[in-house]
């Protein structure tokens, strides 16, 4: 596991020769040893096509490649950091929230509409994810940023989890999500509870929720 949490807002990563790591540009706080930071034109992995894909999907966040040997401290903007370890499953996360991740992870872009058609797209709009989201797949660790602390809620087939779309950070595992609406006549006359939209996640996995409704 390459990430060590120093405190709630700072992680330490170990880089070894031959191991690449990607991180958000400007998120390095300090480093020891010989480490180089190269801006990554493609915004992540893959060739030209993946780069174009990300540009089109608006999931092209400025990333840099971290290489060399030593330890690097990451942190950004005073946001809380959650380290998520992936063991072969897929993490769905918004590209802006990525602080750093292992180069061994496979990066991809997913169309929200492919999960639940039109409702999926509506869901993307409400959660602020847009029409596309970034996926990371494989074995490795990801450091994800959130406003306020993060809690992990497990999802089991018997117990689906409902999440406020604005507090949603990321999820992994075999999870179906859908937007459930509790719109009533009160919302129409402006007396709603403010919780008309909820994200319902069901299946097997975990969802990460931040203790704030502020987006990054």
């Amino acid at each position, binding site marked *: 596991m390459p990430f060590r949490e*120093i*405190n*709630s*807002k*700072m992680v330490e990563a170990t880089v070894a020769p031959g191991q690449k790591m990607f991180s958000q*540009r*400007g*998120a*390095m*706080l*300090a*480093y*020891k040893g010989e480490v*180089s*930071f*190269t*801006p*990554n*034109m493609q915004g992540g992995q893959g060739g030209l096509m993946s780069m174009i894909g990300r540009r089109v999907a608006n999931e092209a966040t*400025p990333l*840099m490649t971290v290489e060399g040997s030593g330890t690097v*401290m990451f*942190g*950004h*903007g*005073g*946001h809380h950091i959650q380290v998520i370890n992936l063991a072969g499953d897929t993490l769905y996360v918004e590209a802006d929230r990525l602080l750093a991740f292992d180069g061994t992870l496979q990066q991809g872009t997913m169309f929200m509409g492919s999960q639940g058609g039109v409702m999926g797209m509506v869901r993307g709009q409400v959660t602020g994810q847009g029409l596309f989201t970034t996926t990371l797949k494989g074995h490795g660790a990801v450091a994800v940023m959130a406003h306020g602390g993060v809690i992990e809620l497990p999802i089991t087939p018997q117990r689906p989890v409902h999440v406020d779309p604005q507090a949603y950070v990321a999820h992994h595992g075999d999870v179906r999500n859908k937007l459930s609406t509790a719109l009533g006549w009160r919302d129409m006359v402006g007396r709603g509870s403010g919780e008309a939209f909820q994200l319902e996640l069901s299946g097997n996995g975990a969802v990460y929720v931040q203790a704030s409704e502020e987006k990054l």
Partner: protein
Amino acid sequence: MTGPVIFDPHSLPADDNVNKYTFCVELKSSQWFLQKGKMIAYYGRIEFNGIGHGRLDRLLRTSFHSPLHASDWVVADGSGKMLLADRAFDVNSYDLEDGNLTIRAGNLLAYQPTLALKQSIVPGFLTLIGTGKFVAASNGPVVFMEPPIRVDPQALVGWADCPSPCHHYDHGYMTGVLGGIRSLTGLGGTSGEEHQFEFVGAGTVLLQSTEALMAEQTTGQVPAEPGVPGGGAPAGAGGAAGSVPRLPGQLGDLQRRFGL
């Protein structure tokens, strides 16, 4: 669940943190220096006098050596307990024993007069020398590291006992043909990590866990004398700050070679 803790003059800690964001100073007919506006409450009889107040002249002679930013500091004098805080930033106290510590001017909240405050020759930083306690704020908890280390300029809070840092530039990807195209066209951008402060030698480096800076405090101007770094120049105009420095022979310099 515990309810809110209610403090009275006796239960307030003496010279310790009340919580992560508040620090309590106990005064027993003694004095503390503090930055203006960082006191949030006090018990007892405490007088706050701006520096320059006649009675304080002796104290100033021993523990305040930054004449040109005296207006940012006050002396608390009397008996009682005083609470210090700064915009909900994490507050911590540090003990120095016959040591020296250099800290970003905006991060220092208060210090005991047994310490002497001096301007560092690094612009924007203050050095505390002697024995005593001081209180500093940081954005997120402070992390202590040992050199050799390279630190993002915004994440640096201060350093103790080690030689002053130097600048380290790392933009190897800007050289060569591809790098030249990169810097000419702006395609691909920069990593934002070309410039660090490098620390070597023995000592401790203090980092804050984010790059969000605290408001910059002026450390005061230094006399315009030959050989004084930053002497006479207004703060912040220290050379070509902001622009990426160039390596000699890099393709980007073609513009200059062609006289463009």
